[in-house]
Structure formats: structure tokens, C-alpha cells
């Protein structure tokens, strides 16, 4: 079943004389329980793509259908509800709120949207156990490490069981050890918790944890590779090959 369907998506910036085609007719789908990575060099349009799917940016034309709903037709109020029910976010520099404890940070959206109080505690404990952060729940964000923070963000993204988790360079601010732990967490979220993840990255190592990788260049889809039964290391080499072909960032 498809969770996300992107149809002939276009996003243009600028005025009549000077148009930048950030997204130029992009179409693809993401199925349930898939872990998709989108790669591309800086300026290729990958963040714009993620922002349009996140409902942060509007589109010039085309459709984005998430869970059967075309989000390009929703108004601001409806989008807010839509995000709450369907989307989870893990962004590289979306900090946690300093004034709240880790527990409150994870539960923030539930609390503000007035879920049953007893249920909230159970949900938070449950998800934080799975992500290995149950012992820091009563600490404040400035008391925990960067890797832990990003796992807290992941927990926050997962807590209301969203249809789609959107991640923008989630390992960007982490060292390699913590990056690996986070990516393994993502994999577990995908395999054990059945989360559907769409991750934007320019890092081949991160992308190699996904099931499928889409490559974007100049606002268009350039290539697509599927992991299938391959080992992660083999998949990594394959990604590097495509990147070389792409002439982009091969970090």
C-alpha cells in the first residue's frame, strides 16, 4: 500500500525573468513500511522536496498524496491537524525545548492536543524504552548528549504513530559513532515498529541503511537503486558508484 504518492511535482522560485526550477516534474511513491533515502548534492532540490512533503513549503503544481489525502489542497488549519495525525519529524537542527524535560519534549504534541493523561505516560515510557532513552526521561535537554537528543527527537516523531516519518540530514550534527547508533535506531523503527521513513541526506553511509535510494539532480529524479537482499556494505558501494556518475558529493 502506498503511504506517499508524489505526482508531477513542480516548485519554481523567482519572477518571470529569472525562474529557478527547484523541483522539475518529480514523481515517485513510498510504500508502507519502507525506508527511503533521497540523495543529491547541495542545491539539487532535495530539501525543497522534503519541505513540500512536510507541508512547510507550498508547491507550484502537482500533487502530494499522503495516506490518500492530497495535501496540496488543504488550508492552513487542516494542514496543522494533518501534520499532527500523519507526520513525524526528525530534523538535524530542530532542537528540543530547553524549558521542558525530555519526557515533556517527547509528549509535547500529545499534551497540547489533550490526550488522556494516563495514556501519555505509558506511550512515552513505551517508546523511550524501545529507543533506549528511558533512563533520561526526567533530565533536561542540556543535560544529555547530542546522540541522545537526536534519539529523543526520534521518539517525539514516533509517539503519535505517524503514517510517515520525515528526516532531514538526521545525522548532520552527530559524530560517526552516534550517527551509526541513530541510523540503527531508524532501521529498528522501520523493521520492528513498522514505521515508514523518508530520509533526505547527502551522506552515502546514512543512505546505505535505507531499503531504496532516490537520486536527485537539478530538480529531477536521476536514478533509483534498491537494496533488495544485498548487504549494507555492498549497497554502500553501489551508492558511491551512482554518486560518482552523478558527479556530486561523494563524501
Amino acid at each position, binding site marked *: 500500500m502506498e503511504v506517499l504518492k508524489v505526482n508531477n511535482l513542480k516548485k519554481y522560485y523567482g519572477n518571470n525573468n529569472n525562474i529557478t526550477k527547484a523541483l522539475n516534474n518529480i514523481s515517485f511513491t513510498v510504500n508502507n513500511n519502507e525506508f527511503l533515502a533521497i540523495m543529491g548534492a547541495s542545491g539539487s532540490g532535495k530539501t525543497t522536496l522534503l519541505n513540500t512533503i512536510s507541508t*512547510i513549503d507550498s508547491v507550484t503544481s502537482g500533487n502530494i498524496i499522503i495516506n490518500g489525502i492530497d495535501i496540496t489542497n488543504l488550508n492552513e488549519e487542516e494542514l496543522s491537524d494533518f501534520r499532527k495525525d500523519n507526520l513525524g519529524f526528525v530534523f538535524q537542527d*530542530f532542537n528540543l525545548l530547553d524549558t521542558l524535560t525530555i519526557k515533556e519534549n517527547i509528549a509535547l*504534541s500529545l*499534551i497540547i492536543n489533550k490526550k488522556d493523561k494516563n495514556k501519555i505516560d505509558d506511550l512515552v515510557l513505551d517508546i523511550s524504552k524501545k529507543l533506549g532513552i528511558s533512563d533520561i526521561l526526567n533530565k533536561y535537554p542540556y543535560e544529555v548528549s547530542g546522540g541522545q537528543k537526536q534519539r529523543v527527537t526520534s521518539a*517525539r516523531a514516533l509517539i503519535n504513530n505517524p503514517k510517515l516519518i520525515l528526516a532531514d540530514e538526521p545525522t548532520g550534527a552527530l559524530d560517526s559513532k552516534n550517527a551509526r547508533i541513530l541510523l540503527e535506531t531508524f532501521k529498528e523503527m522501520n523493521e520492528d515498529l513498522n514505521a515508514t521513513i523518508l530520509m533526505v541526506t547527502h551522506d552515502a553511509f546514512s543512505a546505505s541503511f535505507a531499503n531504496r535510494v532516490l537520486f536527485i539532480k537539478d530538480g529531477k529524479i536521476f536514478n533509483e537503486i534498491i537494496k533488495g537482499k544485498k548487504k549494507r556494505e555492498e549497497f554502500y558501494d553501489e551508492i558511491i558508484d551512482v554518486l560518482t556518475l552523478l558527479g556530486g558529493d561523494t563524501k
Partner: protein
Amino acid sequence: MLFKLAISNAKRSIKDYLIYVVTITIAFSLMFSFNLISNSKDILELADMMKNFRIAVVFVSLIVCFVLGFLINYMIKFIFKRRSKEFGLYLLLGIKKKDISKMFILENLILGFISLVLSFFVGILLSTIISSIILNIFNAPYLVKLPTDYLVPFSLSLGYFLLIYIVVLFLTKRRIKRLKIHDLLYYDSINEKNRTTKNKSIISFINSLILIIGGLFIFNNEFKGVGIEPDTLLVLLSIVLLIVGIYLFVSSFADAILILILKHKKLKYNKDNLFIIRQFNAKVKTMKLSLGTLSLLITLTLVSLTFSLMFNSIFEIQIDTSAPYDVTIIDDEENFDKYINHIKKDYTIEEVFIYHEYFNDINYINDTLSEDYRGWRGTDTYLKLSDYNKLLELKGRNPITLNNDEYYIHTSNSSYNGIMDIIDTLDTIKVGDKALKLKDITDSYYTSSWSFGNGFVIVVPDSIINNLKEESDTLVVDTKEETDEKLNNELINILNNDICETDPDTGVVYCYASANVFVKGYYMATNKSVMTIMDFTLFYLAFIFTVVTGTIISVQSINDAINYKKYYDTLNKLGLSKRKILKTVRKQLLIYFLFPVTLPFIINFFITVSLNHVFAPFLATNNAYLTFILLSSSLFLIIYLIYYLIAYFSFKRCLEY
């Protein structure tokens, strides 16, 4: 949860923006204390004129509301911008905009409310201090006591508070409503603009100078001297030119100076110039509108401070020129006993002095003096040297000496120029058959009651007084106690009974002789009221303007420390020692703080010079205005310096040096 978040955010804001919270607390405290004082019976009953205090305070409070509204609006915008990512996150989590704006508004209301509640306590304390100062000015007995009537002042303060917050929070709500989630998440990437449009900014800069000079020129032209009525429209025009000029100057100066420095390699590569000027340029451009408003506020602060100092001095001199003695009465000598007996009832008389004014057959001065300077009397006023010296002595001045063939002129400031015009004809005068040479002429510490109907007196040696004719008699009484308004009214009644008559048919009062009463206490009370009202309200206003400016500039520079910490780290890595970086910071802050101040200082100087044309005759010396400029500037700078120091130390703390 919304409430809990709001509270913890408010707590954090108090910590992060302590200067701001303290400033509005002080501002609200002053506002409340002025409401308390202007509604206090003790103060209002000090003098008849004091009733106007209440109106003046309401008027000034409204201006203060406006300025505080500006500050609070600015700070709310500022805090919102700094936390835009956080708000973006809320939106991303599916929290509705309505809830976010509710939370943010609640947060700011909590902050405001804390300040308001604190201000009630501080305000009561302040009001007792200010009351004691006012009572002291009026020499009234003072017991330390708390204000008694709270209802009116309290409601007024609450009203002003609500007025400010309703408007500001309404604006905030509208601003949030218009924001898109994308703008919030990427707010900091559209931070400071750095496009230099060379020619345009140089033209604007030159235009701004033209506007300011033009404005000052027109203003100066309208205030040429005493008695020349300024054209209201032209004065307004000059003010508009100055305001537009200030805004234009502030917005184009940074570019103009940048272009200048980039052109000159010597300046450009001298020490940290390049870094400082680039930072300064970016900063000024992003906040040029606010900086313009701040410059305007500072101009108002300085002008109102100078003005009130000037008026203070004028009033003091006024008392000295109109009524330096406790009681002065000009009437016929035979009536003086009546007055003395009346004064005796309530006062202890220390000294009674009676003297005569004389006139000569030839009027050397009044017949040649230009009409602008002539009094209504027609004849020249002569005083005996011994009388004159006695009058000086009573005023606490040193006596003068004259040879038998000399005479002396003492003139008021306003007649001085007129007499100097004809000074050539006054070299020698004849009194009877005796010729007298002019020894000297002075215009300082003149008293108008010396010569009834003229702006000058001619002092001649006692020996020739028989050659002159007696004109009028003056009684001077020195009392032990300070006189008051009541005595003045009673003495005027006695005088009017003598010389005036009421027409029984029409009820119109006719007076048949020119006589007058000057009681020091009356002038003191009137002048003190006007002075108190003006000083306290203008100082109040000036203080608020100063702290608002100080707060905004400090908060902005502390923000820079947080935002640009990495720049300073880079400078450090490039080989600049920490000590030198702190020097750079001090220089940078000095420029930030001085930039909105410099132009107001210049404008204040020229406006005061212009006003001095009108007021100089009433001031002790022609250069007294320089003292006022100096004093007002120092008063402003002292408070401003506190903010500079706070900003510097916060900056230092942020850089962790």
C-alpha cells in the same frame, strides 16, 4: 500545558531579558508613583497652580504609554524572532497557530503583570521620595507617610497598562497570524541584509544633512529674539524637516561611512576597522527604523532636559528680578505705616527701608531711546547712591563707589542693548548745574521694582540729589519668616482700597494711581509650582526615553554576542588576543551606543542656541545655555552609561572570556 509552557517560557525570558524586565518595572513604577503624587492632597494643596500637575501627569503618561508601547512591541518582536524556530517546531508538531499565539501572548502578559505588580510596591516607595522632594521645594513640613488614596492612581496605572498591552498584543496576534511555517523555520537565514546601493545611500545621506541643516536654520530664524513672534507653521515645518532628516540620516549614515572607509586603504586595513564597520553596517541596516525612532527619542530627551534646566534658571532669576526682597511696595510714603502694621500681625520685621525715586528735567535716556526699549514712565529714574547701595546690600551684593562727578547706570537685560545703542550720548549728563561722567553700566542682577515703569536706573552721588525732583516712594521690608501668597493678596487689597474705586452702576474697578506690591512668597509659590510641574514631568519623560533607548541598544548588542560568538572565536583563532577582542567589543559597543546619540546632541545644541536668543535676556549670562547643554547631556549620559556597562559585561559573559 499551554499555561505551564507559557510560565516556564516567561521565566526564561526574565532571565534572558532581565534588562528589559527591570526597565519596564522601573517605568511602571514611575508611572504609578506619578499617579500617586498627582492625586495626593498634600501636594495639590501646596499652591493654586499645583492643580495643573494632575493634568500634566496625565498628558505625560499618555506619551509614556506610547513610548513604552514602542519598547514592549519591539521586545516582543525581538523575542519572537529569536524563538522563531521554536514556534516553527510547535507548528510542525501540529499545534495550531491560534494556540501558539495564545501561549505567546499569555507569556508576555505574565511578564507584564509581574512588572506591574512589582511596580506597585516600588512606585509607593518612589512616590514618598518624590513627594518629600516636592514638599521640600515648597518648604512645607514633611512627615514620612504613605499615600492614602490608592483607588484613582491604581485604576489609572492599570488602565495605562491595559491600553499598552491590548494594542501591542493585538499587533502581535496579527503578526503571528500572517506568518507561514516556512518563514518561522528559516527566519534566521533572512536575518541581516547586506546590499549596498552606493549612489542611493550617498544621495540620501547628503539629503539628510540638507534637511537637518535646513530644519535647524528655519528654527533658528523663527527664534530670533524677545518679542518676535515665531510663525507656528514654519516652526512645525522645521520640526518635520528635522524628524525626516533624523530618520534619513540614521538609515544612510552606515552606508556612507562604509563607502568612505572602503575607499581609503589606510582606514580600511587599520587594525579592526574593517570588522567593526562591516558589523556595524549590517546591524544598522536591519534596525534602521528603530534606530531612527531612538534618535528621535534621545533628541526629545535632551531638548526637554535642557529646556527644563533653562526654565529653572529663568525662574530663579525671575524671582531675583521681580521680588528679591520679602515685601516691596510702591506707593505714597504716608501710606506705608498701614502696610507695616499689617505685615507685623503675622511676621517678625527685621528691617524696614524706605527710599525715593527721582527724576531730572532732561530725560537723557528716555528721550533718545528707541521705542522698542522704552518703558511707560517717560521720565528717567534716578536713585541716590546710598539708597542704591542699601538695595544691593539687601540683595546680598557688594556696594559700589562713585566720585562726586560720576554717575552709574544699572539696566535690565532687555533694555541693555537699547541703552548701548545710545551710549555715546550718555558720556556726560547734567543734573541741575552739575555735570556727571558715566562711570560704568551693568545689566546683571537688576531688579525691576527699583524703577517703576523703566528698565533702568541712574545712580548719582548723594550730594547732588537736591538738584532732582522726587517721583515715587518705595517701601522695602525684610521679614524673618518666609512670606506667602496670602500676604500678597492682603497687601494688594489694602493698596486697592487706597487707589481704586468701584463704579456702583457698572461694577468696573477704576484705579487712579500707579502703585504696586511685590511679595517674594507669591512669586516663589507661583514659580515653584510651574517649575515643579515642568521639571518633574519633563524629567520623568526624559528618564523613560533614556531607559527605553538604553534597553533596546543593550538587548540588541547582547543578542549580537550570542549570534556572532563564532565570529569572535574566528578572530581569536586568527591571532587576536582575548584582551584585544574585548577592546574591539568595547569599541563596537561604543559605536552602537553613540550612533543614535550623536545627531541628537548636535541638534540639541543648535536648538538650545536658537532658544537662547529668546531666553538669554532672562538668564544670568549670555552663555548660561552652555551649562544647560552640558548638564542635560551629562544627566542623559550617566543613565546611558549604566546600560553601556550592562551590555559590555553581558557581552563578555556571552563570549565566556
